[in-house]
């Protein structure tokens, strides 16, 4: 049995689930505690090995493959029956997860063709489960899907997800701001200190206010290769607007152009030459010439781009000057880490002049990078 469990866990890992050694041990102990009755066996393994409902469909599939060989007959029979009923099961279910083995009792002795209410109810519930689980799994897959592999349909599917992520980001910011607002007497530290002076609180300790709200300046590369990433970044930045004193958004290909976000759509204030070739050096120079006053000590400068400069001069010296002027420079790179500094990528030239260079190849990384950037708030 132990070997079979280990094989099963290996199969789970192959299917992309992260299973730690500790969890493996938990699973073994759990099986030891409860025995291997079919009805509970699956749940026993699930509760110890699957820590996210989004992974459940994958788990179920692997479980079927590893443990239900003798039961295949039964599963097939049941599926045929449900087809004979000719209703209920939605599309997309056929190839994915076989029906969950119901809790044994009323299976064999149930009347078949007239779908009794019980059966119907069970099927309803089953479908509902699949729907919700399927949605969780899909959402997770989308946040982990590299931007460059996204189709137009995927980008559209991200809309709803972006709303959720933006809301989470907003909650994160408000939490931090609330924590920062505290600037009161810290009784505990005051008393600790007072011990040094024989119990007389000579030196009151105060929790200090953190520095005020930042200005946000975002420079987003909207050239073809990374347009999706920029579009998502701007949507996620929308909630940040209320937590910053000033927000200025710029899009660029070879020239920075100020943009605003209106109902999720990018509205450039001047025309953008979408077919130009990326030129980060020129963008930085022009931006510095025109908008240097925007860069103050309370500014967070956010740059999103792959730093693929088409072999033009990178002008990292300009970025150095920007860096000296502002509070924080963060560079988000939608290129996968392995491809940095390959070909015409000059991210290495810019790195010394950034406080953080973060990979943002998918939505998950992008929102994590944003959270990290605003940690300095």
């Amino acid at each position: 049995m132990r070997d079979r469990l280990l094989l099963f866990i290996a199969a789970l890992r192959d299917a992309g689930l992260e299973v730690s050694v500790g969890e493996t041990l938990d699973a073994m102990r759990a099986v030891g505690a409860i025995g291997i009755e079919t009805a509970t066996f699956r749940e026993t393994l699930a509760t110890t090995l699957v820590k996210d409902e989004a992974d459940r469909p994958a788990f179920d599939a692997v479980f079927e493959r590893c443990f239900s060989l003798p039961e295949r007959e039964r599963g097939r029979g049941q599926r045929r029956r449900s087809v004979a009923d000719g209703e209920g099961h939605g599309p997309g279910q056929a190839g994915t997860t076989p029906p969950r083995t119901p809790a044994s009792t009323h299976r064999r002795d149930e009347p078949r063709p007239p779908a009794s209410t019980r059966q119907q109810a069970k099927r309803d519930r089953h479908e509902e489960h699949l729907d919700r689980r399927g949605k969780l799994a899909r959402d997770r897959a989308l946040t982990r899907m590299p931007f460059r592999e996204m189709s137009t349909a995927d980008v559209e599917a991200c809309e709803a997800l972006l709303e959720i992520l933006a809301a989470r980001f907003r909650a994160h910011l408000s939490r931090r701001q609330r924590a920062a607002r505290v600037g009161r007497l810290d009784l505990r530290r005051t008393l600790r200190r007072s011990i040094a002076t024989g119990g007389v609180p000579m030196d009151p300790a105060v929790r200090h206010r953190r520095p005020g709200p930042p200005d946000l300046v975002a420079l987003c590369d909207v050239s073809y290769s990374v347009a999706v990433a920029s579009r998502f970044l701007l949507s996620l930045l929308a909630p940040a607007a209320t937590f910053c004193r000033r927000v200025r958004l710029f899009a660029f290909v070879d020239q920075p152009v100020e943009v605003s976000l209106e109902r999720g759509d990018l509205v450039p204030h001047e025309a953008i030459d979408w077919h130009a070739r990326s030129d980060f050096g020129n963008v930085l120079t022009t931006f510095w010439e025109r908008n240097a006053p925007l860069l103050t000590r309370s500014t967070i400068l956010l740059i999103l781009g792959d730093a693929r400069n088409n072999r033009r001069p990178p002008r990292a010296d300009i970025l150095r000057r920007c860096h000296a002027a502002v509070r924080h420079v963060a560079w988000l790179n939608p290129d996968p880490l392995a491809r940095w500094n390959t070909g015409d990528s000059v991210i290495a030239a810019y790195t010394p002049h950034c406080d953080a260079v973060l990979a943002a190849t998918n939505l998950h990384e992008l929102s994590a990078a944003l959270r990290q950037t605003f940690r300095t708030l």
Partner: protein
Amino acid sequence: MTSSSELTPALVRQGLERARYLTTPRVETVLYLALALEKPLLIEGPAGAGKTEIGKVLAEILATELVRLQCYEGLDEAKALYEWNYQKQLLRIQADRAQELAWGEVSRHIFSHEYLLERPLLHAVTAPCKIVLLIDEIDKADEQFEAFLLEVLSEFQVSIPELGTVRARHRPAVVLTSNRARELSEALKRRCLYLYLDFPGLEIERDIIRLKIPELSERLRDQVARFVNGLRKLDLRKTPSIAETLDWARALRALQITELDASGIRQTLSLVLKHEEDLRRVDGKIGSLLASSAR
């Protein structure tokens, strides 16, 4: 009190029945495992599916005390673990000074259990018997707090610099609930058993209504359960919880409605749906929902 050695799945099932908590075999299995393996149990799922209730029920099964830690933004160690009672310490210092006690004596006085304010976590660790610790809505707490919690949950010991380490004599049964307001850390998830608690489905919800409001007619019970299940399939801002279903059923009874119809629903729907847009959205669909629930 039940010790873990004599615990069996059947006992858990009976306990759940006695606590009048109806649920699926899946949940029974997981609850049994959490008790048998003495591991924390992390419960996720939609709001109102009965996550918090599990903690309470568990305390009832084990016939023990429930210690509840409600998480919120800005919750810190001082409010979750322990805090020194500074005011009292200050008084003590002044009283001692009047008696001209030596410093060593004073410090021994003021850093003793008498001046310690026990917060839920420390209380759970120092309890004389096995208790149930419910950490509610862990996703609302900050990430730093989660990291700190990890330490307590893995060792069940707390070190207080002035007093030394306090180790739990009985491992508390720990239940954590989360609404997925943010992703929990992998480390926390690894240390817990996991349960995704969904709405129980039509049949069980019907049984729950029967259990809690036995006076309701069978027909109305069936209609209410079906209608609410139909509502949950719609894309609403807030899906109705089980508690709300029960409230609604009680309201219908109080209004002496015996048959669910469109006008009766319109009158009372605000008990189930708490958002204006949800109400407006459902308003047009009452007919079709009713038709499917009359089946």
